[in-house]
């Protein structure tokens, strides 16, 4: 592999995450991007290129919405790229930024992710109806939660996992989110609260699901030599990986996300990580549903197949445990403005690895892994971040 430049993260920004924000998508993009620029001590004219990550156009109802958002993302008259792999977008956008810099093409890249799910009403789930194959799936009137419940149930059945163990993820993440200033659904809850919450699509209860949200986040990437001019504490984006599996999802065994494992192996190899559970200090796997955090921990090779629930119940994945998982509070606690939710995880890695996470700070954070997932249970995107040493 010929990587010409090592890539650093030198700034991050984020807005509030809420069910509905008054600000437009452009305004949210501006606020996040501007905060990231300020935190790096940069202005827009020091940015060589911009990557925008934003998920289904159908939420906003604006076709090619990245062009609509361009001005708010600081991209006017700059090389501008929109990347989109469904829910995997938020961790794919920094990979898009990485390409620009690792290739030697640019020295700085602003990565912005924005999502407003609120314009689509009465519920953004209606926009998801257009994701289905029109011939073989849509006539059955599917709901997207159906298929995640199918995947969750397969995972539970193959390994004999009790629902109580999975519910613990919601308790942990909503609790962690109490310390995140953007958080939409931070709460102190119990396993019983999750189990007794309304059944949406069995075995998924209401408190197993992250909410629809509005919000934006941004990162500043820079090449090594340029990063040093701006900061003494760059965070290194040393590994990137991505993989997509077949859209014929009923023809593959849903109990294990092979595409996430492929993406993780690609990123770990690049970051020279040989023993992920030992070498990774904390991880931010994608957690739009409780079981997804566990499923993804296994896909990220941070737990043996079927063992992630046990680690969670034992407290290993708590913020003060041996392997903190979603110290930010994740999508379950902070919220799920699709693309911005994934980038929120990368912002968290940046703050953790600079000791700037405040009450959320994980002790001895040296290496963090962020991952996102999406479409028809087929996208895995992974970034490995390291502290400067």
């Amino acid at each position, binding site marked *: 592999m010929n990587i010409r430049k090592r890539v650093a993260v030198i700034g991050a920004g984020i807005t509030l995450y809420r069910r509905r924000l008054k600000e437009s998508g452009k305004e949210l993009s501006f606020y996040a991007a501007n905060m990231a620029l300020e935190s790096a001590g940069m202005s827009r004219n020091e940015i060589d290129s911009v990557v925008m990550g934003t998920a289904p156009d159908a939420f906003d109802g604006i076709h090619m919405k990245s062009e609509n958002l361009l001005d708010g993302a600081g991209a006017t008259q700059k090389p501008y790229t929109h990347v989109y792999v469904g829910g995997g977008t938020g961790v794919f956008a920094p990979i898009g930024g990485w390409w620009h810099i690792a290739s030697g093409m640019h020295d700085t890249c602003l990565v912005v992710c924005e999502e407003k799910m609120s314009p689509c009403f009465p519920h953004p789930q209606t926009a998801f109806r257009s994701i289905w194959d029109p011939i*073989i799936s849509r006539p059955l009137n599917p709901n997207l*939660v159906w298929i995640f419940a199918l995947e969750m149930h397969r995972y539970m059945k193959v390994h004999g996992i009790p629902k109580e163990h999975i519910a613990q993820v919601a308790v942990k993440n909503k609790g962690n989110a109490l310390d995140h200033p953007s958080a939409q659904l931070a709460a102190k809850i119990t396993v019983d609260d999750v189990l007794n919450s309304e059944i949406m699509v069995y075995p998924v209860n209401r408190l197993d699901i992250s909410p629809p949200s509005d919000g934006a986040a941004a990162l500043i990437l820079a090449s090594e030599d340029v990063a040093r001019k701006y900061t003494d504490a760059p965070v290194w984006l040393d590994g990137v990986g991505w993989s997509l599996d077949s859209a014929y999802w009923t023809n593959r065994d849903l109990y294990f996300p092979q595409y996430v494992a492929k993406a993780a192996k690609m990123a770990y190899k690049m970051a020279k990580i040989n023993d992920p559970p030992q070498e990774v200090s904390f991880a931010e796997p994608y957690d739009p549903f409780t079981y997804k955090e566990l499923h993804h921990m296994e896909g990220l090779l941070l737990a043996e197949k079927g063992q992630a629930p046990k680690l969670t119940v034992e407290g290993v994945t708590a913020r003060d445990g041996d392997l903190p998982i979603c110290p930010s509070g994740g999508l379950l606690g902070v919220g799920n403005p699709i693309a911005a939710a994934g980038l929120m995880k990368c912002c968290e890695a940046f703050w953790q690895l600079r000791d700037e996470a405040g009450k959320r700070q994980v002790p001895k954070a040296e290496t963090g892994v962020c991952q996102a997932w999406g479409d028809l249970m087929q996208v895995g995107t992974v970034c490995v971040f390291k502290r400067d040493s």
Partner: protein
Amino acid sequence: MSKDMKELPGTPVSGKELKSDKIITFEWRPNAKYAWSAGIAYGRYLDELKEGRIIGRRCSRCKRIIVPPRMFCEQCFVATDEWVYCKDTGTVNTFSLSYLDADANRIKEPILVAVIDIDGASPGVGILHLLGNVDPKKIDVGMKVKAVWKPPEEREGAVTDILYWEPMED
């Protein structure tokens, strides 16, 4: 967010405020219609469903028999080369009980959703469909099921020509 930052941008709006005159919104409802070609593979699949049969395609390289059928094998990336009839029986691979309709509205009686591995197709090759004529509490992974078809005169060449799948008698 950095520990030094206390105030975050963003102005939350409640559902109530949204409906009030305090927030200006503009509404638009698209009037778009689509007509999708089923394509070669799904076209035959739907024709056969109309006749009360499930058909798959075989890849001569990996020997898989795949349903829903496609004219290419996405793994070997070669053209598939043979039509193969499968049975209208199968096994529940996984299932869920949906208390949400397609627009996320709450419903009282659950929709019984399953991935059904099709007998006669390769192991682990299934389709998304519905279960019926069964107590939801008695559904389990591994349960053998059989397609319940619409009467022939009502079939239209659609996946809904199968009404649902019901448990097979032992």
